[in-house]
């Protein structure tokens, strides 16, 4: 961790020293300059753009978890600040949400999940939340949803950001980001640097409900430190070619306190990851071809000395994807993709190093008719690994009844989904089950979207099923995963956003509401309510900027969640309000210095997101941010 800390500081220093890059000779670029990640999304399916650090209403240094909760209304299972945070979306488990980075899966092939608390939002250019219909266009496994993160080096933007923050409970953070274009052999190029260091002691006060009169105690043994460094380079060897390479190094150390009802000492977790992605894109007149290659080494080391657990899970993943997008006419588009992944995993609980090869392919067809008032799209995805195959059709219809006169769309889409068993589910000793079948799903959604320059309103009604859901159950004294459960979920997602700029006043508002009815059963029993799935989740954000001052308010509400399937115990609802103020204190040329102050959980609401895992009450965050942009 010390080595990575110094690496981060060095990178921060280098980034901070780059105050200005001389403007290069102006180069005429083709219309596209942003290296898109995936353009194959179904227009008929639900997607929510959650923004990036460039959005005024997104607080700087918000973690990905906070962004999903505040702007996306997504429910998370959080064990505490800096502790494991995984999403549950439309009734799915954590391993039913895939997280991608520039189109490539980050979920662990061993665990099937991605710990969102390790992801620095400051590093990403954009985050989108996609429903399960669209997730199959990226990868298998997204039976609930897909979180797509983009990070690109940009040819037309010169910018530098430095953010330093400190907050209650002994928490501190520093982050920087620099993007500057340059030329190489008279061709446009760009460099992107990111560095992020977060150190949290998490010594927050909380009321302990396990003791009489709920005395106030201070959390101990919950420290968390995280460092992320990334370096990106992009170049356009010709007007039609675009090549980008990004390296991302990540390290996380955390101390995991036991829950309030357990007397044990803290456990320790140390994660390290190195990720390298290369993307080459060719833009022809009617055809675009891209090749992506992604390599990751990852180590997840969990130590609990009180019960003698010392798991060191390691994996290497090499993923490759070729995509061709062909516009046969201005109304008709084909997309063909083929991918190959090679993954190896090792653990002290594996009998040997296990490897798997996965091939996948996709064909998609989009047709616009009646002056694009009707769009019909459909296709099929194919996946194969370790003797298991899945053929997953998808499709949708989007109708714009008023054409260009009004940006109103009616949408209907559906897909089959699946999730292959993870390496741990197959090979864990003892108990792993190599005979598992993939989980299978069906998803259907329909809704309305209105998207003008200022106002966006989107709603989607959905119906999902999950079959052969894998659960670890005891068998003869050992726990072993089996395909046993069936789950059906239905509900509605609604999100809105509104922006207004009037002179020196800028207003940005948004909200998200999710209703989910999730029921499950095993082979023989009646349906029961799924535990830990809130029926209602609501979030709203708002910021108003007047001249050099910005006021922000974020609201999150979560309804009660049952923690048993027969509804005889629950976690109470909670309501959180964050209030922030930012003041521009210095503006000189292209430099801007801003001071900010946030009050998180201003209501000082005492709550637990997971049983017996206290969350912090009111806290104060102070930050100073320097920005430079050309």
């Amino acid at each position, binding site marked *: 961790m010390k080595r990575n800390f110094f690496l981060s500081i060095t990178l921060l220093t280098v980034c901070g020293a780059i105050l200005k890059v001389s403007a290069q000779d102006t180069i005429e670029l083709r219309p596209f300059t942003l290296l898109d990640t995936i353009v194959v999304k179904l227009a008929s399916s639900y997607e929510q753009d959650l923004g990036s650090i460039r959005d005024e209403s997104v607080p700087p240094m918000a973690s990905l978890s906070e962004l999903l909760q505040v702007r996306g209304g997504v429910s998370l299972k959080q064990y505490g600040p800096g502790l494991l945070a995984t999403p549950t979306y439309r009734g799915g488990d954590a391993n039913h949400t895939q997280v991608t980075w520039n189109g490539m899966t980050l979920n662990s092939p061993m665990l099937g999940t991605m710990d969102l608390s390790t992801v620095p939002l400051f590093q990403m250019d954009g985050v989108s939340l996609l429903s399960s219909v669209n997730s199959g266009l990226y990868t298998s496994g997204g039976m609930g949803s897909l979180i797509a993160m983009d990070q690109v080096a940009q040819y037309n933007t010169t910018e530098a950001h430095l953010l330093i923050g400190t907050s209650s409970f002994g928490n501190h953070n520093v982050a920087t980001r620099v993007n500057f274009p340059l030329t190489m052999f008279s061709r446009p190029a760009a460099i992107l640097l990111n560095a992020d260091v977060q150190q949290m002691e998490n010594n927050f006060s909380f009321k302990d409900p396990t003791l009489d009169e709920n005395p106030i105690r201070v959390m101990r043994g919950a420290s968390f430190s995280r460092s992320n460094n990334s370096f990106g380079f992009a170049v356009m060897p010709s007007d039609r070619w675009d090549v980008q390479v990004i390296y991302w190094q990540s390290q996380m150390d955390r101390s995991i306190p036991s829950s309030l*009802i357990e007397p044990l000492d803290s456990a320790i977790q140390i994660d390290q990851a190195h990720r390298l992605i290369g993307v080459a894109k060719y833009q022809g007149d009617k055809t675009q071809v891209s090749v992506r290659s992604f390599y990751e080494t990852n180590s997840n080391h969990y130590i609990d000395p009180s019960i003698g657990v010392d798991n060191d899970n390691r994996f290497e993943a090499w993923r490759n994807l070729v995509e061709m997008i062909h516009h046969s006419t201005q109304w008709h588009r084909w997309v063909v993709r083929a991918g190959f992944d090679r993954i190896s995993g090792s653990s002290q609980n594996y009998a040997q190093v296990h490897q798997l090869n996965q091939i996948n392919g996709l064909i998609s067809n989009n047709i616009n008719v009646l002056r694009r008032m009707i769009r019909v799209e459909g296709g099929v995805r194919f996946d194969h690994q370790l003797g298991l195959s899945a053929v997953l059709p998808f499709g949708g219809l989007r109708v714009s009844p008023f054409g260009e006169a009004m940006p109103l769309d009616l949408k209907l889409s559906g897909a089959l989904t699946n999730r292959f068993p993870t390496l741990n589910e197959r090979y864990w000793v003892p108990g792993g089950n190599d005979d598992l079948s993939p989980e299978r799903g069906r998803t259907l959604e329909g809704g309305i979207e209105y998207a003008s320059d200022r106002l966006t309103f989107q709603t989607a009604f959905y119906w999902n099923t999950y079959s052969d859901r894998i659960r670890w159950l005891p068998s003869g*004294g050992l726990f072993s995963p089996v395909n046993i459960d069936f789950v059906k979920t239905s509900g509605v997602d609604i999100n809105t956003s509104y922006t207004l700029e009037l002179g020196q006043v800028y207003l940005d508002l948004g909200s998200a509401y999710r209703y989910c009815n999730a029921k499950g059963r095993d082979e023989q029993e009646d349906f029961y309510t799924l535990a830990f799935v809130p029926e209602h989740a609501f979030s709203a954000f708002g910021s108003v900027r007047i001249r050099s001052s910005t006021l922000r308010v974020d609201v999150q509400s979560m309804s009660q969640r049952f923690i*048993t399937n027969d509804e005889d*115990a629950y976690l109470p609802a909670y309501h959180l309000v964050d209030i922030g103020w930012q003041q521009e204190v210095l503006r000189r040329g292209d430099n801007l210095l801003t001071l900010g102050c946030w009050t998180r959980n*201003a*209501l000082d609401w005492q709550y637990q997101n997971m049983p017996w895992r206290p969350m912090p009450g009111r806290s104060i965050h102070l930050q100073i941010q320097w920005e430079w942009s050309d």
Partner: protein
Amino acid sequence: MVRLALFVILAVLISSCQKEELIGPQYLEVSEIDFFGDDLLLIGCEGNFQVGNASLSTHDLVSRETNQQVYRSVNEEAIGDIVQSIYRTGDSLLVVVNNSGLIRILIDSTFEEIGVVEGLTSPRYMEKVEGSKWIVSSYGGESLTLIYLKSLEIDQIIESGLWTDGMLRVDDQLYVHNRTDSTLMVYKLPALNLLREIKLAFDPIYSGLDELGHPWFAGPAEGGSAITQVQSDTLMVVAKLDTPISGMRFYQGRYFILSKERLVILDASFNTVGGYEHGASLPYGLHVSEDGVFVADAKDFISSGEVFHYGHDQLLKHIIPTGVIPQAMIKINY
């Protein structure tokens, strides 16, 4: 702008009260229980891991009346996280609550708590050493813990295998299931000196004594399960099964072996003499007494469970509703 900001902040802070201080898991109201009966089956339910919803259920074997959440009804608090085992000594009950790291001592007729032994590391099972000294196994704690019930204190910690589980006393020897490396650790009582270690070809989970006082041990093995007996310090593999077993008891000259779908009955020589399909979807515990055979069903391992009560005529008598994940069962009569 400043006024607006101040107004918003003040408005939020003034309206901030958390109307009811509900923090942490909330449970349904439990009705008061006045009378338990004289002939009871006490069922310990593990509850969901780290949720803290373990419980005790009682079933009156005469009236067939069942009470849930007995501990919480009497003591007005939750019993803890994962009830692992229950013992009766004199007029007291000892309830081992694994993930809470404690042992609760209850009056056997009223279930009122009279003491707690705390500070244990993942306690699982107990055996009496002498007097009020008991030994407690520790799953993952690398130790056996000697406790003194009179003072409710930990008397001594003895280093042992990492994952010690069940225990079986045979005269002045204590057999401890060491699941770290599938061995039996044999200690001399009461000094608790380690005499020897016996290597097994399977993971020892279940144990008991036959009618001659010979210990037997059983657990999952490659291809299914294995049963071993120890006679005159000799280890004998007496039976191999092609299916995992979820419980095993010896009662009146017969072995009752619980598997996923069947209850198999063997005589003392391990010859099959009977058996039947039981109704449990996830068999998780077995108890045999003069009242019959009780098969605990953990169902989906998330919801409330059931116990299937079969008579010795192999006919289903009654299905007993229980708390979440019923496992430990003990008969209490007064």
